[in-house]
């Protein structure tokens, strides 16, 4: 059946052992959480109804009447957030360990694409319970997309299925969430995993340099069973955290969306979009005669392009290169700014939503 070949592949695959080995578990953890998303998502599909007059009620039915429906829904929501968090950690570790360098440029590109896809999953899934907060957050989010020059209005209409956020938007987002995005993710994730297997695990330049200086031979462990068993311990921990969160802090359903009601206080997107949301919010109306929001959107777009193209900007091997260090400093600065903006978005006194 070919299982032997797969086991053989796992036994031959080696995972380097050094002081940064812990970060290698992030990829597997992301994949595990994605698996939970797929499994719980399929279960939710059994009862969810994607229409404005039934979506909220169907989720309410899931969490109140369906056996363990509350657990499935809470795990889906919490796991989505945990997945984004772990994926950011995975991306950051790959970035700072310089694992995007040759020959892993395409692995990086597919990784960044997967990040975009996961965020799109988050954005589309947020609206599906059709509650008040999600409705207005989607309105704001799609408005931002609409502000992009030239293609913005088209993108906004494409996302909303019209000029306003309506039941049509919900059906559309459902389509993206359960068909378009999973199909794209399957392809991109397949390529990503294939490339990871092909190129093996990358060692950070600093570790290679230190080993070269000390002359100590490289250490590694077999993926099967050594690394896989440790991976499994991490997955168990993730399951425990998810179960705890689902039982103690079940994901709130809120109030049903009412398009004719005034926007409630405290509209904010999911936490991973908050830094962008806050940045656009605090920018002045006009900067040097150009609309502040446009400049913000341009800056965010430029940042995304830089992140995507970093393997082609930082090509020099070795840890000590000035350009490489500057890139690290810039990345740390961006992370710090994003962190501060996220905190600001959650602080009403500092101009965030109350």
């Amino acid at each position, binding site marked *: 059946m070919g299982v032997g070949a797969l086991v053989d592949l796992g036994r031959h695959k080696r995972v380097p052992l050094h002081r940064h080995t812990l970060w290698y578990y992030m990829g597997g953890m992301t994949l595990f959480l994605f698996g939970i998303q797929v499994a719980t998502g399929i279960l939710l599909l059994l009862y969810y109804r994607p229409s404005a007059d039934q979506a909220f009620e169907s989720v*309410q039915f899931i969490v109140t009447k369906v056996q363990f429906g509350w657990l499935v829904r809470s795990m889906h929501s919490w796991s989505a957030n945990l997945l984004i968090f772990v994926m950011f950690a995975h991306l950051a570790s790959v970035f700072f360990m310089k694992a995007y360098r040759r020959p892993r440029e395409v692995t990086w590109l597919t990784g960044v694409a997967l990040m975009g896809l996961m965020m799109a999953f988050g954005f589309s899934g947020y609206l599906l319970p059709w509650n008040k907060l999600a409705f207005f957050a989607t309105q704001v989010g799609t408005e931002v997309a609409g502000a992009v020059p030239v293609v913005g209005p088209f993108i906004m209409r494409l996302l909303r299925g019209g000029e306003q956020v309506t039941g049509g938007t919900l059906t559309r987002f459902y389509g993206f969430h359960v068909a378009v995005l999973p199909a794209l993710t399957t392809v991109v994730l397949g390529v990503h995993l294939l490339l990871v297997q092909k190129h093996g695990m990358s060692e950070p330049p600093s570790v290679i340099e230190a080993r070269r200086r000390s002359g100590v031979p490289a250490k590694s462990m077999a993926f099967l069973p050594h690394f896989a*068993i440790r991976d499994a311990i991490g997955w168990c921990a993730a*399951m425990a955290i998810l*179960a705890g969160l689902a*039982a103690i802090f079940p994901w*709130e359903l809120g109030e049903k969306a009412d398009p004719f009601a005034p926007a409630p206080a405290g509209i904010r997107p999911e936490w991973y979009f908050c830094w962008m949301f806050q940045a656009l919010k605090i920018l002045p109306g006009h900067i040097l005669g150009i609309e502040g929001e446009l400049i913000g959107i341009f800056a965010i777009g430029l940042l995304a392009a830089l992140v995507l193209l970093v393997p082609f900007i930082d090509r020099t091997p070795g840890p000590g290169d000035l350009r490489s260090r500057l890139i690290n400093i810039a990345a740390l600065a961006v992370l710090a700014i994003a962190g501060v903006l996220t905190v600001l978005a959650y602080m009403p006194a500092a101009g965030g939503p109350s």
Partner: protein
Amino acid sequence: MSRRAGALAAAVLVAALGAVRGAGAAEVSKPLQGLLPTETSCVKCHAELDGEWGEPTKHTGEDVHFGRALSCHNCHGGDPTAGFDGDSTLAHSRAKGWTGKPARKDIPAFCARCHADPEFMKRFDPHTRVDQLSEYLTSGHGRRLKTGDDKVAVCVDCHGAHGIRKVSDPQSAVHPTRLADTCARCHADKSLMFSYGLPSEPPEDYRRSVHARALYDNGDLSAPTCNDCHGSHGAAPPGVQNVSAVCGSCHTREASLFRETEAKRRIDLSDCSQCMVCHSNHAVLKPTDDMVGVGPRSTCTTCHSEGDAQYAAADTMAKSLAGVQARLAEARDLLDGAGRAGVEVGPDRFALQAAQDHVVEARVLVHSFDLERFQAATAEGQKVADAGLEAGHRAFDELHFRRNGMWLFLVVVVAVMIALGLKARELSRRDPA
């Protein structure tokens, strides 16, 4: 004033009305040829005068009449196209119908020349009323004016003489939000009201009422102010027999229940004032549940005393209402607690609203004084509240099940993690890196 003198004064007033009416709206409303209402000789000359002669010209911008292309001469007569050279006698021409300032006693008829003329008024608004004068003549104000008392309110006292705004204009003195203050200018004047043998407290009482709070605090323009109970132009206190009709024009259900009762028939025979007995008139406060029963704030004990059947019925009503309220509060607290702990109780909370509806129904049914009907409503409420309470307990059972399940799962997961950890260590020992 003797009856004969009164009759004479009334005859004079009616004759005056006839005389002024005889002038006719059509005669005083000739359109101006080529002049805007603010370009007449009246406005031009009076604008240069000080004091009361110049004052009217300062309000032409806000005046509803000027807005409809009417000007000074449409009320006061005269020739608005003459006298620009300073010769006011040409403008103030008696031959051209100049009347000058009308006496207070003539003002209702003066305004009625147009406002009681349907032909004339429908040019401006097909829905406008033209019965103000006839209503006024039935009011306390109008009746006293007929007797020669010109201290009573006439049109200009409420609407103003110049700068008259539409009633719907929030700055109008008769807009719902300002009407009580306008009435209070006279009706809160102790010495003036004393001279008529009327109380001066109603305006102050009204300001404390639930109606005033709804109007002023909530901006609810449907909340009643003075004219909604007393009428506008036909302002008169409702008679004792009519109180329930007045209150019932808004509180229809309560009024219809009350009208069917034995209590109503008894009250009709006594000097009690129906709704006012329990709710007061101007100082209608927000009704509370302790108005029913035999407690210190009960209004039932105003008429009923220990030993009579109605006293016992009031006590039973209060106890059933308090019982269902307590059960409802308990259910609500329990569901809120479960909701805060993360159990979705939205549908149960929604279902509990029906109990509140039954409580409201029971409060309304108090006006039927029918214990059986009242208890049927509270029993329904109790049933829903009990169901809510049960749902709350179920929600907490669910919560405990979740928490216990979580601990059990954590124990299993930790055990698996330990086992995997031990296995990993054993493998590392057997096959070091």
